[in-house]
């Protein structure tokens, strides 16, 4: 059972996940009634269909070229970046690019092999929600967002480096 943490309300909190991952839209999308997340490559080929349907989001894999998602970002309800292994940091750069380069301001989710001890960094890279790996304790994981009270560098979470705040000196 995987739990969901969201920061959309401000402080990180557990939430109910109402997005459905659609692995194979060609066969599964027709039957899906609610909010769906579809693979980026498929979405780019079916952009008009998805815009007409609404309630859709993009599923990005680590080797997807995030810039190609740009034409759809105005229409999506979520971008979900998959971690195949928690030690694969490509999703961190993908999130940073979505926020800082492509200007995406909606819900940005990390899912897959997402673990408690990565959450602090993932949030800094711009993620706003986190669907934890099976077996991760969501309630206990909330503490990890408080690991550090400041930062040495800017990323995509709006924190400024200590020196730019004047607390470095």
């Amino acid at each position: 059972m995987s739990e969901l943490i969201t920061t959309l309300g401000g402080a990180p909190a557990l939430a109910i996940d109402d997005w459905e991952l659609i692995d194979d839209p060609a066969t599964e999308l027709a039957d899906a009634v609610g909010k769906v997340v579809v693979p980026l490559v498929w979405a780019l080929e079916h952009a008009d269909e998805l815009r007409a349907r609404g309630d859709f989001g993009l599923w990005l894999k680590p080797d997807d070229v995030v810039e190609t998602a740009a034409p759809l970002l105005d229409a999506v309800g979520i971008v979900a970046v998959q971690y195949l292994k928690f030690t694969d940091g490509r999703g961190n750069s993908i999130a940073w690019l979505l926020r800082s380069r492509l200007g995406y301001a909606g819900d940005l989710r990390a899912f897959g092999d997402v673990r408690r001890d990565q959450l602090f960094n993932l949030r800094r890279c711009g993620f706003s929600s986190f669907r934890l790996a099976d077996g991760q304790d969501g309630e206990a994981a909330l503490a990890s967002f408080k690991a550090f009270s400041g930062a040495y560098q800017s990323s995509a979470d709006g924190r400024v480096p200590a020196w730019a705040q004047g607390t470095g000196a």
Partner: protein
Amino acid sequence: MPQASPPRIYRYTEFDQQMVDERVAQFADQIARNLRGELADEELRPLRLQNGLYIQRHGPMLRVAIPYGVLAAYQLRGLAGIARTYDRGWGHFSTRQNIQYNWFKFEDTPAMLADLAKVQMHAIQTSGNCVRNITTDAFAGIAPDEIVDPRPIAEVLRQWSTFHPEFANLPRKFKIAISGTTDDRAAISVHDIGLQLRVEDGALVADVYVGGGLGRTPIVGSLIRKSLPWQHLITYIEAALRVYNLHGRRDNLYKARIKILVKALGAEKFAAEVDAEWAHLKDGPGTLPQAEYDRIAASFTLPEYETLDDNVEFNDAPKAFHRWVERSVHGHRQAGYRAVTISLKGRDLPPGDATAEQMDAVADLADEFSAGELRVTHEQNLVLPHVRAIDLPALFARLGEHGLATPNVGFITDIICCPGGDLCALANAKSIPIAQALQQRFDDLDYQHDIGEISLNISGCINSCGHHHIGHIGILGVDKHDEEWYQVTLGGDYGATPEQARIGVIIGPSFAAGQVPDVVEKIVKHYLANREGEDERFIDTFRRLGLASFKQAAYAKEEGEAVHV
């Protein structure tokens, strides 16, 4: 002796201290969860590595960062205290300006890190697939040939890379080295990023080299950006790391370093990709303001030097003193002062090792003779950077009392050596016994003196922690059918500039451990017999004669000798 001024290390702010303390708390919690069974070993692994904690052959190993090799006396006392309290009373200085402990209890690690934090030290990012401890010239700030003091830039980049959220899980480890002299002493050519600092039109700039490295695929770095103004260092390196993070290989551990990506794309294409990314970042919020550079640079002031005569003669001193001066004492920017290298390559301990008592003694000597400041070299020795020339005889005598006056710096027994198979779980073969056998073989000081300047590096496996690829003589431990064999390379040199760097060439089939001293001696004798005068160094003779000549000498058979093919 009371300090006239605080030591010239980067002075932690409350914020810096808080970040290190919070890291200790975070790690203590991770270890506690692991011990309670809530955090699996494989999940803890990358977390502990980013805190310098390995699980080794006999138990854990903790690697503590000595940022860019700069250390205050009180910090060395802290390191001695940890060796005494948690370990068996010694530590090992590594080739990357770190210190490693090998004999402590896993569950003591949080307490060790807490003790380190009390002396403004840490083990943050000394391992793992992240930006590692940034290294530079051990004589930074005092060397007569220095163009730019690299310490402020090193500290700027240390802070920027500390807990970088985007680059915490790179394809592989990432090492940055910085040189501020024309004659590079930081081996920047064999780092993932090497920065050569220069002054151009009165302004500080950096030449950026990328994709150098040792290990399985030794490569000399390529120049991808010339004359980068210092304000843009962070954004440019951020661009390079983003390209690497997204495009570096993750399918094969041995092909994951940035050097493989640079090689696959070609340096020009890689540079173009970095430039394309950098175009978005240049002049953005990551641009370093003068005020922040100045704030950090203010930590690295000079001590209050006395006005002294630079000409100091020691005519009545014994030969042993003069021998030590010749090897250990280096020029200094300030008249009447010298930098002194303390060899950690004596007979009694493995190369780079020091006992807690020695660390305490060196800390006392740093307070007494060197304004409370020390350096750690990538050759695994220590340096007292601000010694009055007139104090040299007294310092020599005091070092001798602690077995720290070995006059072999830069000689064949100043062996650079990883811990090897005695301790390291990665090693294929032992390296310390090979080093000790070679030190015994070449123990005679007159012989060492005759051989002159030479570098001899030993790595216990292809990970190359002993930097054997850049040793004039390199020795690599290899595993053949579960036996330890040693491959010899010749002609390695990290060069005065990256353009001059050379990776050592394998001379031929490997040797059994017992053969190594004989083989090295044959190589050395071949040099002595063929050099053109005493001023021609080993490396120069090697370059003149070429590999074939030395290979023949190394494999020349004597009676009863077997060569493994």
